[in-house]
């Protein structure tokens, strides 16, 4: 019995594989803020038109933090593009058929 135990191959340690985790508190915070910013843009579209017509805007915490006519240039102006709400403010919304 003891000999068997001594000759047994060491069990390969399995990498710890947990169920895919949900969001971290920071991720959740980022998502909720992003959602609030989208709602804010949608509700304030008409007032945004007065100031930012035909421009891209970047919104963070329900505030326009940057704007530009060019999206690529706007990306350079914001600190965290992947978590920033972007929208093109226009009087002639694109009519999409996707």
């Amino acid at each position: 019995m003891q000999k068997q135990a001594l000759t047994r191959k060491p069990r390969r340690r399995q990498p710890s594989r947990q169920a895919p985790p949900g969001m971290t508190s920071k991720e959740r915070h980022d998502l909720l803020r992003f959602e609030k910013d989208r709602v804010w843009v949608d509700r304030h579209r008409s007032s945004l038109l007065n100031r930012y017509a035909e421009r891209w805007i970047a919104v963070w915490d329900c505030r326009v933090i940057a704007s530009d006519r060019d999206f690529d240039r706007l990306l350079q102006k914001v600190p965290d593009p992947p978590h920033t709400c972007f929208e093109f403010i226009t009087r002639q919304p694109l009519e999409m058929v996707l």
Partner: protein
Amino acid sequence: MTIRGSFFAGAPYVNVKVRTDGVAGVDPMLVDTGAFCTLVLDRDAKALGLSPHSLSSASPSVIGVGGSVKCLLLPGVELVMKSDQEDEVIPHNLSVACHDLAHASPAEQHRIMQLPSLLGRDILKRYSVTCDFVKETLLLARD
């Protein structure tokens, strides 16, 4: 388990957390039952920091009303959506549309950049989807 979407400019969206080793961000995806697959479009790809060079595997091009577009694949992505219970985490090989913006006119580039990412049937088929345009409510539910 129910995921609650939202309406933006009159259209139904789900804000999806996209995460992989090198990328993490939020992508507002238009719920599109006509789309065969979930697709990140150019504007959101740029915002997420996805350049064509960072995408290795080629995926078949997809066709829409406006014509065909080349797609690249971002493997090993997790799409995360918040629900009324645990977060919904979906491992996914994500298609990213890459329009040839360099050869498009400025006006066409501008239109392309306004296209939203699409939450297609590859994801939607997991859920009972209820979309009420009158009340502007969107629910993705499953047992």
